[in-house]
Each structure stands twice: as C-alpha cells, then as structure tokens.
C-alpha cells in the first residue's frame, strides 16, 4: 500500500523541510493511523519528536486530515489508513 503524507503550517520543518512524503508499505493492505504516526516519528522525524507526538498521538494544535476532511469525522486516531489515502498534518497558525 502507498500513503501520501503532507505537512503544513511549519510542521514540514521537523521533516527535513519536505512538505510531501510518499510512503510504501509493501507487506500491508492497511495500517492503523496510530502506527503510521509512530512510524513517522521513528523514521521520518529529524528532530525533537515532542513537537509532533505527545502521549502516542499528535500533540495539541495539530489538525489531521484524511483525504481533505477532519480525522474526527473518521474516528480520529483509531482510523485505519488504506491504500492511496492522503493524510495531511497541519499545525494551526496563531500569527497575524
């Protein structure tokens, strides 16, 4: 299965400044979103994991979108990511 991950709102700075990451899991058809997040923390994150993950989920202030809709509409952290899903992680902005 292939998953497309997009990062915005400054989160990309934690991931080598790359806004888009394509990941392939050759041996899987689906993967729990929680496992994907921990995989990202352990394999893609370049620094300071506490700015992305706290208590085994994304830290407060990050909005997660599954195929352009809020993950809360799909069960949040308990969603199972499927082949060709796009998961977007957005850090909310506060400036003005």
């Amino acid at each position, binding site marked *: 299965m292939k998953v497309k991950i997009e990062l*915005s709102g*400054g989160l990309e700075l934690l991931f080598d400044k790359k806004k888009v990451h394509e990941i392939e899991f050759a041996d899987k058809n689906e993967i729990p979103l929680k496992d994907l997040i921990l995989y990202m923390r352990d394999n893609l994150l370049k620094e300071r994991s506490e700015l992305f993950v706290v208590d085994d989920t994304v830290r407060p*202030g990050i909005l997660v*979108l599954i195929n352009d*809709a809020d993950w809360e509409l799909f069960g949040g952290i308990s969603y199972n990511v499927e082949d060709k899903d796009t998961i977007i992680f957005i850090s*909310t902005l*506060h400036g003005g």
Partner: protein
Amino acid sequence: MEIKYIKEHTLKPNEIERYGRQLITPDIGVSGQMSLCNASVLIVGAGGLGCPVALYLSSAGVGTLGLVDYDTVEISNLHRQIGHRESSKGISKAVSLAKTISELNSLVKINTYETTFTSDTAMEIIKDYDIVVDASDNVATRYLVNDACVLTGKPLVSGSALKWEGQVTVYNYNNGPCYRCIFPTPPPVETVTKCSDGGVLGPIVGVIGSLQALETIKILTNNKEGVLSGRLLIYDGMSAVFRTVRIRGRQSGCNVCGDKPTVTQLIDYTQFCRSDYSESAG
C-alpha cells in the same frame, strides 16, 4: 442607478452613490447594503490582518466598526500593516487605523479601544457588536475571543498567518463548531512560532484579511450557505495553492459550547495557554 434598485429602502442618496457598484452585485442588493449599513463589527487586532479587514469592511459600509489594540505603530510593522503610516509612529494602532479608514469612508462610526483584550475587558467591549473578527496574533487571545463569542452568542471570523501561509474559518455560526471544538487543548508553548520570530509577508495577511472581510460580509448579508463554517481554508502562498477542507461540527463535549459546558465565564487565558496576550513587537 436604475430605478429597480432604489424602490423601498432607507439608503440615503450619498449611500446610493457610494455603494452603487456594490449593491448591484448579485446576492448583495439593496437589502444586503442596508444590512451592512446597520451592522456593527468588532475587530480584535489592528495589525497585519486587522488592516485589510478594517479597510474593506469600512469601505463596504459596515455601520459601526470597533478596533481593539493595545499596541503602538512601529516602522517595523509597516511592511505588512497597510492601514498605518510613517507619521503614526508611536501612536496607538487602533487610533492610527481609525484615522485611515475615516478618511476612506466618513460615514462609518468607529470606536477605538486602546487596551489589551483580556478576561476583564472583553465582555464589556464585545456586547455592542454583532460579529467579531479575530485578527489577533497570539494563542491566549484566540481562546479568549472564542470563549467570549460563545458566551455572548456571536459569530467569530477567524484568520491567522505566518511566513508564507494562512488559515481562515468561521466559528460559532449557524450551530457550527467553535475554536475549542477543534482545538480543545492549547498547543505546547514551544511549538508556537510568532511572526516576530518566523516572519510574515504582507500579501499573505492581505489575502487572509480580505477573506475575513468577505466572510463577514457574507454573514451580514445572510448568504449562509457560502459561509466558511465547518470548513477550513488553508493557503500556501509559496505554491499558490488553496485547500478548503471539511472540519468537525459542533462537539457536544466541548468545554465551552458543548451540552454541559465547564467554562461558563471567561477564565485566565494567559494561565490556560501559559503565554501572554501579546506577541513581542513586530
């Protein structure tokens, strides 16, 4: 103007002259223009976002505008805060912006509040307005503005920007979500980047502030279906890509707008967010 646009209304001839090109726009019309002229909008923040919001709402003829900002104009603001001038250096941002918009449209009544929007000042200020625009620049103020809007039942048009990016949505409108529904817990302090640290470009706040002004106009003219409630607009200026995404609705478990709220009056938001009601100057 043609006669079909001017039957049965309370607009004065100088208003017809000034707003003619606007009131012929579909879904505005004379009734929409009258709604704008009778409306009052509070803008929290007279900085990068507040400037275009105030300029476009005043020029559109919103009857009363309130401008809240404790800060004073600095030269380092002027690369993005287009409602101020060099000659306003050192004076209140609320007063400086009020001066600019009164020269653009003297028909608009403007109230300035040269104060920090806090738990002590918010309710007294907000009570006189129909809609609130969050054009602030820090986390504590964003939770404060949200809770004040929920407690007083007013729609909140929220915009934010940093570097090359911006976000816009409308909270507490038409049974939609509030800010706390989406973000129940404040972000860790160390994850929050300020404009004074990360920088921000003028056209980014220009786009986001203009979008906030338009959402305000849509709400005031009762163009309900198009309002960005339950949707979040995300803008990446570098790649010139916008995305409008669906976000969750009102949460019954929300601490302030839910069925059994635990926040029933304003709290200390600097403590809640572990940060101040102000950015450092920038």
